């Protein structure tokens, strides 16, 4: 029913005043029952539905979204895609994601604008250099790409950065993952939604889950703002609001919610052609195709569900960013926003059973959910379809908190003495 996208179809439609474009997705009424219901119409939920239909042949699926699809963290991040992780488990997970992203536009027939411009992690001291070498080796052994740049190499890639000797943190070099970069966040949600819809998935917007129906220790349905809907399996992919569902259904989660802020500047002619991240200054930025600088940093200090963000972190991130790239001082901010991210004790995601039969979880992505959308969907679909982990998602099962086999990417980087 839907058009195939190409330069040719765009050309053809131009002569028809673009009257012939079909809806990218339907607005179906919810059926009383599905095989699988995905709660959450963000990137992870939509990707899960897509892979369930495509890889596992399950078509009787609904995605329930309380607002507009892609309106949560999928549409509120800084669009960075990378797999520069330390632990082999993480490398495997995020590299699967990068590989899926590499072919995603063609697979979905929707341009998600994955731009592999490189992801650069700056090194500002000898101590950081040692940790970077540890990281590069871990990445290479873990099967992903990484290279070390010296200060001159960094200067070639990003002359806008602060190479002055009086910089608070001088630049020694960088770790760069060339396959990393950015994507168009909304397009990822829309592309998956369109592709899933074409495979028969019901995407139901403005449908808020208000209750979980548990019968005989098993989740059999959900109460929603559009009525009761049943299914034999449920997958929850609701990021920062995971704990709200957990309270409804009655299971524990190792999650705390925080606002993560981002900023975009007025559009500028090209300034930087790589994603530049610096831990010392606590900030990173890249430039969007429209020309705006997309900037971010750490979590707000106060746990919250307020999708606003607050000044202390703005001051911390932006003052670090200017010291990192002083020419940016005069650049103006156009918008600032925040997403609510779900942070686990080890900063690694949770994929696995909820503890209540029939309900599975995909959450805990913290600050890094966008880059993991294809892998998160792919692996979660596997779990929902088969009831078993894909080998890549096994280490991310919530049972790791009991066995204490954490995948602590935050602590892996250690602390300088």
């Amino acid at each position, binding site marked *: 029913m839907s058009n195939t996208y190409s330069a040719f179809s765009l050309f053809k439609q131009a002569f028809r005043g673009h009257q012939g474009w079909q809806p990218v997705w339907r607005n179906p009424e919810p059926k009383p029952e599905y095989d699988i219901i995905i709660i959450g119409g963000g990137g992870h939920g939509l990707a899960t539905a897509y892979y369930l239909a495509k890889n596992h042949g399950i078509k009787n699926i609904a995605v329930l979204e309380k607002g507009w699809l892609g309106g949560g963290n999928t549409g509120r991040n800084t669009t960075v895609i990378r797999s520069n992780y330390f632990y082999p488990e993480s490398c495997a997970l995020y590299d699967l994601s990068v590989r899926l992203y590499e072919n995603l536009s063609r697979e979905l027939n929707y341009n998600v604008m994955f731009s592999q411009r490189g992801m650069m992690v700056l090194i500002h001291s*000898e101590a950081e250099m040692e940790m970077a070498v540890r990281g590069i080796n871990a990445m290479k052994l873990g099967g992903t790409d990484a290279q070390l740049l010296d200060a001159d190499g960094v200067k070639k890639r990003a002359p806008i950065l602060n190479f002055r*000797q009086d910089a608070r943190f*001088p630049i020694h070099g960088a770790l760069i993952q060339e396959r990393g970069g950015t994507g168009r966040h909304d397009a990822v949600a829309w592309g998956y939604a369109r592709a899933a819809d074409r495979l028969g998935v019901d995407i139901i917007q403005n449908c808020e889950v208000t209750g979980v129906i548990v019968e005989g220790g098993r989740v059999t349905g959900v109460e929603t703002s559009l009525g009761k809907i049943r299914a034999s399996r449920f997958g929850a992919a609701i990021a920062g609001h995971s704990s709200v569902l957990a309270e409804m259904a009655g299971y524990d989660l190792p999650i705390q919610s925080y606002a993560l802020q981002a900023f975009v500047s007025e559009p500028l002619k090209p300034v930087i052609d790589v994603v530049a991240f610096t831990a010392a200054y606590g900030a990173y930025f890249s430039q969007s195709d429209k020309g705006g600088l997309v900037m971010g940093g750490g979590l707000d200090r106060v746990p919250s569900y307020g999708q606003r963000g607050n000044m202390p972190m703005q001051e911390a991130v932006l003052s670090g960013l200017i010291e990192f790239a002083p020419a940016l001082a005069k650049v103006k901010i156009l918008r600032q926003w925040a997403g609510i991210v779900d942070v686990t004790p080890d900063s690694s995601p949770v994929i696995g059973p909820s503890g209540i039969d029939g309900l599975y979880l995909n959450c805990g992505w913290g600050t890094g959910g966008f880059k993991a959308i294809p892998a998160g969907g792919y692996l979660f679909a596997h779990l929902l379809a088969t009831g078993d982990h894909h080998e890549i998602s096994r280490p991310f099962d919530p049972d790791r908190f009991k066995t204490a086999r954490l995948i602590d990417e935050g602590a892996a980087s250690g602390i300088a003495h």
Partner: protein
Amino acid sequence: MRDDSTRWAAASGYDRPDININGLQISVIRPWRQTLISGPISKSLELGYQKRAVGWPEIAKGKNYAIRMRRDRIMLINGPAIEDGWHKDKGLAVSDMSDACAVIQLEGVLADSVLKRGTELDIGIPSGSVVRVFHGFETFIYRWQSKDIFRLHIQFGYLESIWLLLQNFSNQASAQPCTNWR
């Protein structure tokens, strides 16, 4: 290996000229003793021969006085010599901290405006204690002798940095009011 000695201006320690700008005077002062006492406040005050430990915006008076640090802690400024350690009879813990903090005095009508650049300080918001984060530094800030003399204590290690900050703030404060201000 990187040598940062030229990237950081040589430290001046206590030996530095005052900041004097538009009637604002900022100087380092050297009380001869600062004593930290933890435990029941009435006992602590008794030990230091003080009636009260000031909070915000109270005004500390005289050469020797006490400032309130927290629910169960005061600091005596120029108090009597008291033996370090646990005072069993009174249930008090005592540590001499005479050298731990540098003390900076800010005087003049602009002093309030300098302080407001580093913290949300207002006489309308009283506080039981004088401890306060000032532009990221943990400090004690209180009024002394009059309503526009302020004292600020800071860990000695941060004296260089906070001085740089106060210079910066003094320049900003004395540049005000600008034409937009009516």
